[in-house]
C-alpha cells in the first residue's frame, strides 16, 4: 500500500534523508561526523520541538548537555536520571515518557562510551524533530542487524549512521502507511 503524504512532508523527508545521507558518507569515510552536521540540526529540532510545545524534553536535552561537563563523572548518570524523571512529574500532554527515556538512553550510551557523540546527537535530533520516542526501536533493530553482520564479517566497529538512516526510513514508512 502506498503511503499518502503531502508535498510539505515530501520536502521535509527529502531534507532529512539528504542530511542523514551526508552524515552517513562522513561516517563511512572517517568514522566522524562534523559538528556542522550535528549541532545546527540539534538546535533546529529543539526549536521545532519548543514551537510544538515540548518544552520539557528540550529542557532535558539542555540539562544533559550541561551535566556532561560536570567535574564529577560518578554523579553524571545519577543527575541525568533525576533530570529525566523530573519532567515526568509535570503534566505535559504534548510529550510522552518514551521520548524522554529515549533521549536519556541516547545520552547515557554516549556517556558510558557505548556510542559516539555524533550518533547520540543524531538520534536526539530525530526524536526532537518527530516527537516520537518509538523511532528508537527501528533504529536499534537496524543497528542490531548491522552489528550482527559486523560480527560475522569480524569487524570491531560499525558505522551506526547507516542504522540511524535505515531505521528512520523504516519508521517513517510504517508511520505513513498506518
Amino acid at each position: 500500500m502506498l503511503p499518502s503524504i503531502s508535498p510539505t512532508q515530501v520536502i521535509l523527508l527529502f531534507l532529512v534523508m539528504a542530511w542523514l545521507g551526508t552524515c552517513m558518507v562522513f561516517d563511512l569515510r572517517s568514522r566522524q561526523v562534523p559538528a556542522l552536521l550535528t549541532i545546527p540540526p540539534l538546535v533546529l529540532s529543539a526549536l521545532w520541538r519548543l514551537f510544538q510545545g515540548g518544552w520539557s524534553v528540550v529542557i532535558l536535552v539542555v540539562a544533559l548537555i550541561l551535566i556532561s561537563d560536570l567535574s564529577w563523572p560518578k554523579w553524571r548518570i545519577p543527575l541525568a536520571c533525576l533530570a529525566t524523571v523530573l519532567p515526568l512529574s509535570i503534566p505535559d500532554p504534548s510529550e510522552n515518557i518514551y521520548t524522554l527515556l529515549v533521549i536519556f538512553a541516547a545520552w547515557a550510551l554516549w556517556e558510558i562510551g557505548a556510542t559516539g557523540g555524533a550518533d547520540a546527537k543524531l538520534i536526539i535530533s530525530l526524536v526532537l524533530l518527530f516527537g516520537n520516542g518509538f523511532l528508537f526501536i527501528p533504529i536499534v533493530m537496524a543497528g542490531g542487524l548491522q552489528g550482527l553482520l559486523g560480527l560475522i564479517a569480524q569487524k570491531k566497529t560499525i558505522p551506526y549512521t547507516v542504522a540511524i538512516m535505515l531505521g528512520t526510513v523504516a519508521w517513517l514508512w510504517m508511520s505513513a502507511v498506518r
Partner: protein
Amino acid sequence: MRFLKDTTAIETAEVAVIIAVVVLVAYGAYQILGQKIAQVVQDVAGRI
C-alpha cells in the same frame, strides 16, 4: 561542551547487538505484561 564537541560516530558491533536485544526484550515484555497488568487492573476495578 563535551557532548556537543564529540564528533565520533563509532559503535562497537557487540554493543549494537546487545542494545538491540535489550530493547527487543523490553518491548516484548511491555507488549505482553502491559496487557496482563491492564486486565488485572480492570478485574480489580470491576470487583470494587
